[in-house]
């Protein structure tokens, strides 16, 4: 089934490869894949490039159908795919967002050094594991009333802060300030609400995690100084999404879109790319529901960050404020956004689908926090449990070339079942422990599935983004404590 992809790829420059529109009838724009020449054979191992070509068929798509260097085979869009459609005559597709709407990452700083944390590490990991629910179908400590879920959906992270889960300043450091204003709770089904209500404030399972990390290397000193980050400093990364609520919103609207495709006579090469015109009621409704699910995800990460602060406060017997536990940034990497971009010299408004891709806006962009206006928007790239994660910042080149987008992670190399066959969860845990990384997971199976070997080398993915200029590498973090679902 995973045949090699033998389509045509034209070299544009060192890191860009084009699938010409002549590759497949119906392509409205070319495909453009960011990949190092040395990794071309890996790229061709499955049908991810075909998915890049399929996305190029979407009505109203402009520029190109892009793939970031962490591209891998997904459903609908490839993971790492970016596609922008005109808002007046283009479409919106749930296949360009995915089931885990606003899966994303946030990074929290501390004033603590590795030496400060080391004696408490075991206790910290145990306590975090207790305080932040994780695992399959995990339920949270929050008890939401039926009416309250509406506020979560329409106010996002702001709801959490209003309820005392966090600080006002956190919102300034969250993409969209943690709330897409287009969200409408009445466009989210009762079933989706029911599925999401008990899960707010939970990590989930699979590749989601909470990590205590140490800054291992600084690449861009001036930017790191602005972010008040230096080598040896401890930071915390949270990777999670919209849980069952987002999954159900996607499921509900895939059915709506299937009908819309027939109603509006939209010709697409893959049913998972089912879509509706943005201007049509189906497109508007999906966008409003997707935005609501995105808001839920921001509230979710906000609540978990608040509990993380409390846990650190308990363990170190100091107030989180005195530990310098400020939010550095929170980014979404499965989302569709309405943004203004320049295409062929003209300023136009587009719907940018980022499916496993991160917004990477440059210094001075109006949509990034004022505090970062001279360094650019932080781009957070989680890696696997053993290798580490990255902090980058957005660039002008990204804004010009990729609708302001960059990579989102390492990208899977091995299927979960193959990873499980290769190694046991206990082995992964003890090997990581030998390297000074304490891991606690709700399930041993997840540990095996998420073994470092199952992923592409995040260092390489980030190097390509950096050298291609679609983001600037600032810091590399290695994990010392990991909570998995």
């Amino acid at each position: 089934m995973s045949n090699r992809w033998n389509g045509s790829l034209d070299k544009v420059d060192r890191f860009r490869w084009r699938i010409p529109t002549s590759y497949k009838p119906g392509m409205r724009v070319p495909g453009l894949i960011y990949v190092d020449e040395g990794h071309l054979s890996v790229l061709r191992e499955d049908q991810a490039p075909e998915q890049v070509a399929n996305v190029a068929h979407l009505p109203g798509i402009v520029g190109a159908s892009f793939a970031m260097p962490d591209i891998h085979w997904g459903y609908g869009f490839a993971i790492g795919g970016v596609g922008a459609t005109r808002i007046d005559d283009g479409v919106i597709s749930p296949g360009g967002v995915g089931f885990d709407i606003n899966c994303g990452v946030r990074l929290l700083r501390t004033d603590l050094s590795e030496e400060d944390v080391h004696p408490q590490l075991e206790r910290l990991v145990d306590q975090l594991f207790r305080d932040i629910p994780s695992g399959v179908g995990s339920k949270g400590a929050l008890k939401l009333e039926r009416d309250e879920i509406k506020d979560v959906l329409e106010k996002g992270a702001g709801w959490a802060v209003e309820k005392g889960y966090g600080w006002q300043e956190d919102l300034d450091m969250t993409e969209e300030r943690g709330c897409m204003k287009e969200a409408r709770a009445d466009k989210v089904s009762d079933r989706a609400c029911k599925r999401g209500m008990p899960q707010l404030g939970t990590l989930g399972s699979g590749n989601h995690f909470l990590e205590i990390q140490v800054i291992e290397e600084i690449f861009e000193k001036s930017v790191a100084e602005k972010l008040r980050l230096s080598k040896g400093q401890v930071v915390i990364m949270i990777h999670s999404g919209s849980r069952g609520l987002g999954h159900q919103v996607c499921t509900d609207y895939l059915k709506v879109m299937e009908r819309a495709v027939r109603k509006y006579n939209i010709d697409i090469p893959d049913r998972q790319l089912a879509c509706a015109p943005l201007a049509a009621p189906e497109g508007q409704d999906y966008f409003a529901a997707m935005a609501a699910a995105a808001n839920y995800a921001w509230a979710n990460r906000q609540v978990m960050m608040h509990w993380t602060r409390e846990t650190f406060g308990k363990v170190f017997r100091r107030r989180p404020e005195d530990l310098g536990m400020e939010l550095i940034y929170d980014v979404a990497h499965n989302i569709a956004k309405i943004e203004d971009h320049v295409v062929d010299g003209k300023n136009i408004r587009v719907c940018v689908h980022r499916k496993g891709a991160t917004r990477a806006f440059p210094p001075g962009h109006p949509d990034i926090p004022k505090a970062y206006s001279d360094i650019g928007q932080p781009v957070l790239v989680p890696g696997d449990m053993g290798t580490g994660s990255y902090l980058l910042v957005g660039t002008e080149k990204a804004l010009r070339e990729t609708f302001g987008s960059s990579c989102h992670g390492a990208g899977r190399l091995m299927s979960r079942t193959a990873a499980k066959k290769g190694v046991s969860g206990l082995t992964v845990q003890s090997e990581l422990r030998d390297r000074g990384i304490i891991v606690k997971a709700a399930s041993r199976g997840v540990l095996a599935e998420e073994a470092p070997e199952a992923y592409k080398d995040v260092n390489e993915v980030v190097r390509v983004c950096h050298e291609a200029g679609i983001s600037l590498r600032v810091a590399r973090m290695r994990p010392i404590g990991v909570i998995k679902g």
Partner: protein
Amino acid sequence: MKGRINVSPGYEVLEHTADVGLRGLGKTPEELFTNMAFGMTRLILSPDSHVSHDEERHIEVDGYDLESLMVAWLSELLFQIYSEGFLPGAVQSIRIKEHRSTSADSDGYSISAVISGEKSRPEVHQLVLEIKGVTYHLLKVECLDNLEKEPDHEAKWRAQVILDI
């Protein structure tokens, strides 16, 4: 997808880089849908989780064609498992109906089924996999009459889905 890893009479699990695939067989569409439901439930529950038949639930879903009916059917079971906490133990009865008129707004097929199972109990049941959704990617529901027969199987129907995990 890279080959089969677990062969059993009615279904098999397929590998996919980021997701997981399921292929099923059946002598009738009803048996095929039953086997796919069984296969997906087995992926979610640990092998030693025994599900009793304390409760019965009536399920109705529809779809434009058999493929979208399969997505609707499996999506409904995911909702039952993850949201209702109801674990399907067996399909007690299942009827697939084809409707005559299929306009853009109406659905061509529907399922009416009774599932027996029980409410999930953490001390007995371990859920080992969170499936986010049922995708249309590489989705197939096909009659084998005009296709190659599966070896050693009397199946007439075959299906394949990719589940996002």
